[in-house]
């Protein structure tokens, strides 16, 4: 029997110890009318070999197209050591470290992770992760409402150039709690938020301002000015960032005069494969003064009975298993395994390595933009400074172009026209350090033929 070790003798002895005539008798408390005989809709079992063949067929059907799509999930090199260690059973098959003495490996790793994320974002504290970047933004908005006791409005300002799916998720998750999201238009020529759109809210009760750096179009926002505007108008500042970009870009803790209050994002660029959208992990860092309003697990260093240092879950009085209906969030799990990957990844690359990866991604995106805009019918939408994504405008419907490219083995980018109709036939493209000059030339060649 797959995964079940019992022999007939075992079963006989165990039933005798229980004093039950059969295994079936163990279910006698379930009303007979509810019991089912068999699961006819489930296929018969496959052996591991047969399952492997099936899965390989499915995988091969999708193939390995050349990818120029980002939009919140980015293809980067992952050192072989990362997943070799992550899939060690001691990490892979352990649970939440409730028994601290038997979980020091996971706990110390999470403490190291918290230290790295705090330093990378230039904030004081980090939690042990949330589900993903989008749900982390939702949690940040709820946290801002709790942390900003003087604000009564629960009103959050969100630029239109924040990842629109993140905003959709934030709305869905906060739906029952009466938050109000006001979407601010971006400045049409630059694709970034001008403080003039913020000034319409001057003097009003605003709980928080969200800003994404780089924004969904890959462009750099004037984060210093926006952070200062939030501080001057008594609003908290929630930063949404790509953690890789922070190897090059000013960290949120140093934005403006006072820095961001809450920083969130998706940790996927650090050692987590694209894998169809998950599991990734969301990160959250904040100022020490807000730590008791932060959701999710937090690890602290302390000492044991003999005075020896050790690690444990701390500030648990915020959490659902203690506070039940008054908890900061219903969240219990973090994304421990993905954090394990990210912590190993950050350790292997270090700041110097991440800088190189970020720089190479930016360089390759510039090369991609140069190559594609040489094609008739393709132009660059915004010329300002960017990280590793860019908006192109095409002379025809984007979805048709993407379909044609997919047929020729290219995943060509993200179609912005549904969420941003004012941008026309707009396509968001991305090249990371994994895209070679040959890859870019290949994309340009095929796009040229498609647009002919």
């Amino acid at each position: 029997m797959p995964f079940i070790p019992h022999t007939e003798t075992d079963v006989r002895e165990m039933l005798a110890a229980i004093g039950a005539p059969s295994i079936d008798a163990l279910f006698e408390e379930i009303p007979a009318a509810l019991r089912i005989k068999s699961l006819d809709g489930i296929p018969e079992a496959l052996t591991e070999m047969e399952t492997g063949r099936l899965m390989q067929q499915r995988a091969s059907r999708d193939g390995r197209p050349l990818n120029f799509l980002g939009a919140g999930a980015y293809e980067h090199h992952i050192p072989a050591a990362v997943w070799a260690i992550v899939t060690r059973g001691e990490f892979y098959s352990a649970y939440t470290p409730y028994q601290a003495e038997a979980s020091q490996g996971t706990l110390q790793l999470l403490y190291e992770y918290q230290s790295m994320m705090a330093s990378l974002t230039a904030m004081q504290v980090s939690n042990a992760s949330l589900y993903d970047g989008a749900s982390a933004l939702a949690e940040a908005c709820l946290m801002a409402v709790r942390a900003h006791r003087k604000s009564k409005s629960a009103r959050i300002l969100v630029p239109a150039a924040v990842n629109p799916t993140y905003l959709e998720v934030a709305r869905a998750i906060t739906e029952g709690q009466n938050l109000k999201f006001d979407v601010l238009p971006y400045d049409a020529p630059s694709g970034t938020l001008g403080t003039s759109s913020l000034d319409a809210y001057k003097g009003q009760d605003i709980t928080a301002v969200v800003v994404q750096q780089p924004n969904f179009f890959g462009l750099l926002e004037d984060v210093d000015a926006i952070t200062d505007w939030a501080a001057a108008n008594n609003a908290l500042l929630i930063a949404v960032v790509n953690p890789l970009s922070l190897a090059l870009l000013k960290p949120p803790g140093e934005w403006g005069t006072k820095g961001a209050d809450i920083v969130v994002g998706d940790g996927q660029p650090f050692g987590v494969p694209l894998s169809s959208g998950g599991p990734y992990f969301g990160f959250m860092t904040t100022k020490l003064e807000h730590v008791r309003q932060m959701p999710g697990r937090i690890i602290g260093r302390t000492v044991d009975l003999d005075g020896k240092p050790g690690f444990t879950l701390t500030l648990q009085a915020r959490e659902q298993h203690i506070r039940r209906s008054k908890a900061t969030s219903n969240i219990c799990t973090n994304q421990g395994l993905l954090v394990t990957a990210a912590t190993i990844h950050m350790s292997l690359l270090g700041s110097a390595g991440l800088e190189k990866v970020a720089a190479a991604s930016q360089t390759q995106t510039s090369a991609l933009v140069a190559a594609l805009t040489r094609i008739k019918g393709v132009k660059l939408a915004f010329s300002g400074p960017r990280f590793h994504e860019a908006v192109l405008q095409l002379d025809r419907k984007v979805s048709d172009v993407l379909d044609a490219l997919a047929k020729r083995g290219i995943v060509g980018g993200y179609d912005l026209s549904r969420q941003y109709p004012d941008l026309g036939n707009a396509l968001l493209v991305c090249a990371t350090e994994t895209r070679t000059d040959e890859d870019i030339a290949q994309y340009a060649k095929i796009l040229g033929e498609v647009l002919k």
Partner: protein
Amino acid sequence: MHEPLIFTHSRTGRSAAGQYPQAAAAEVPEKFRRKKRAELPEVSELQAVRHFTRLSQLNFSIDTHFYPLGSCTMKYNPRACNQFAMLPEFLGRHPLAPDSVSQGFLACMFELQEMLKEVTGMKGVSLTPMAGAQGEFAGVAMIRAYHKARGDLDRTEIIVPDAAHGTNPATATMCGCTVVEIPSLPNGDTDVEALKQALGPRTAGIMLTNPSTLGVFERRIQEIAKLVHDAGGLLYYDGANLNAILGKVRPGTMGFDVIHMNLHKTFSTPHGGGGPGSGAVGVGERLLPFLPIPIVGRDGDRYRWLDAQDLPQTIGRLSAFMGNAGVLLRAYVYMRMLGRAGMQRVAEYAALNANYMLARLQQAGFDAAYPGRRASHEFIITLKRQAKQLGVNAMDFAKRLLDHGFHAPTTYFPLLVPECLLIEPTETEAKEELDAFIEAMIAIQREAEQDAAKVKGAPYTLPVRRLDDVRAAKQLDLTYQRG
């Protein structure tokens, strides 16, 4: 065993240089540029590998230890599930890649939805919730959306038994509902009279776990379902204990309108040191329009994503993409390898192991919290007597078990049973392992009678002894400070 922090291995200028390109400098205007590097470790590849391998060795895990953590279903995570979910094509697939280059992946997800419908008796499934708690959120949000769509705006109360997981009341609050708690009877069943009192025109629904967290099957479930439905409320099934009844009884047949499943429990995806989980939801007819998006649909022989255009009343998106896809693939592989008979065996042998341990521990003199009841896939031992007579409590037993090489059962949950150990062996453990655990419990009992202080000082053989949690919360040390 002790492993220093990775930062102490760090030396300026050291790195794993083969892991990144020697790229040209970036073009970042001065005002956007980072001035001071983040303090990440500067170590060689071997130093990193050795450090994290050593850290892993400080953990208990299913692969290394019996891990009978009640309510968590710590069963074997087949290695094949991991290997097949990590085929390069699956790992490399961008979540927003066109459907035309995603048919293989979408076929797996569609079939997973169908199989989950079959085992739960539900009419529709969405795979997007990223954890059990998010599945719960989706479930309660759908119940609210249902009442709202009918103009039934006063239904904001969620009834929760006192034995429920803490996530149940926390979720109800998150959805803007108020919580009405009802007691359990001394025999472990829900107090139906108290339920009747709690039901009314403000009732949105009830959240139940069945079998409950007390380790027993709720025998009056049909009556409860009728009462709640007659009062205009809906029934939410917390799938935490689905392992106990897989293929034996369907939540849909019991009368539930919505369920979340913990794929990391019942369908054996890894717990990963506290995640990722996956909290797929299933619904009956009434809640179909409200399912979270995206869902995989089928037109003829083509699979495609269904979104808000297909489900205009959806409660929306809960993740940036489609949830924890890699976890879902692992669950899919597991279900295909078990097949229809294998799934029924899960519940059968989980129940056999639990009832065997319960019987033997009772024979050894331990007190069952609900004697006379059949255990589901888990059961509760109460150490109230030992705490009173010997001064040795459930936490002391738990810590001493670690010295015997067993991960402790769940302690102090459910909150209503004093000094409890919630023990869930799962179907994948062999009888010898269960016997060894039982012998350890007997040895600890004997030790407690002879030398209580010895038990109270445990553990002795782990990387650290008991930790000062008060100090951890008062003198916060949450990040490493150099110097």
